[in-house]
């Protein structure tokens, strides 16, 4: 007999599933590594692997074309967050030279059920994002780096991710092949 009142909202379950899976992963990493810095590094590496695949999906989905400048890239990154996480971080605090900006997150579904215990003060919970951005941008010949400078989990009002453009990667022929 079909039961009433127990219908699941598949969209909600799916996004919660992602949040919880990521949470389970982070807590497993915390168990496996003694050093919190290693956890951050591992998250970044995983993010990189995700990023290099995610960019394919992003390009296919949005049919984006080449960005004219880093400002446009910033907007594309913002669009990426909207597509995949359903949030629109604000772009702000451009540096004078235009090669560095901040993404300000007021909400982040990844943090939905998260509370950091006292022994995790150095943990960058969302560090996977820095890896995702690095991986995704590397695949489109942009060398960037990013780091969290404000974190809601640590009591800040917003989460701020600082993204810095380093250089455009040139196609290089591997050594020994012409």
């Amino acid at each position: 007999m079909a039961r009433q009142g127990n219908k699941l909202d598949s969209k909600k379950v799916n996004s919660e599933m992602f949040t919880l899976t990521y949470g389970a992963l982070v807590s497993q990493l915390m168990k496996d590594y003694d050093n919190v810095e290693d956890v951050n590094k591992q998250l970044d590496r995983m993010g990189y692997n995700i990023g290099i695949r995610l960019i394919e999906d992003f390009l296919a989905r949005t049919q984006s074309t080449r960005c004219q400048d880093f400002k446009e890239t910033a907007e594309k990154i913002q669009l990426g967050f909207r597509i995949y996480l359903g949030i629109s971080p604000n772009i702000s605090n451009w540096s004078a030279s235009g090669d560095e900006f901040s993404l300000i997150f007021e909400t982040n579904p990844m943090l939905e059920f998260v509370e950091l215990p006292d022994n995790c003060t150095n943990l960058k919970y969302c560090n996977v994002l820095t890896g995702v951005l690095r991986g995704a941008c590397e695949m489109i010949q942009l060398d960037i780096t990013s780091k969290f400078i404000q974190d809601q989990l640590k009591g800040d009002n917003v989460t701020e991710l600082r993204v810095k453009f380093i250089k455009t990667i040139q196609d290089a022929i591997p050594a020994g092949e012409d």
Partner: protein
Amino acid sequence: MTQALADEILLDLIHAEIVAYANGSPSDGEEKKDTDYSKIELMGFSCGYRIIERSTKDGARFKDELDTMKFICTELWAAIYKKPIDNLRTNYQGTYLLQDNSFRFLNKMSNGSQYLESAGKYVVFTCGLLRGALSNLGINAIVSMEINTMPVVKFHIQVSQPQN
């Protein structure tokens, strides 16, 4: 340009990373270890345990074990794995057999039998998920899996009878 939320791929990717992590990524510079199935299973367990609590807290109480099982096979499965379980069988004595003919984490892989051996690590997370979900609903069970042809997965659930 589509603006719809596309977070499904994220779960696929994070799951792939979990498997790769438990697989012992060779880039660690360490020796290649055997896949740590229990680690993946445990992560699945904690997800299942939490997701079922969030999904059922406002629902009606389940009639019995079979009713619970049906809910997991249809509603929960459809929400997470995009389709309900294809076949649910039981001997009415605590053994359940769930069959998914196109399992989400396997259906993008080759259908050949070449990698059948390594397919298991993409399924243990779900074994844990099932165990976790059942555990939170008060059913202690042992969940195992069987893959004979890709991407068909059979989950065997053996409910442990309450002691005393």
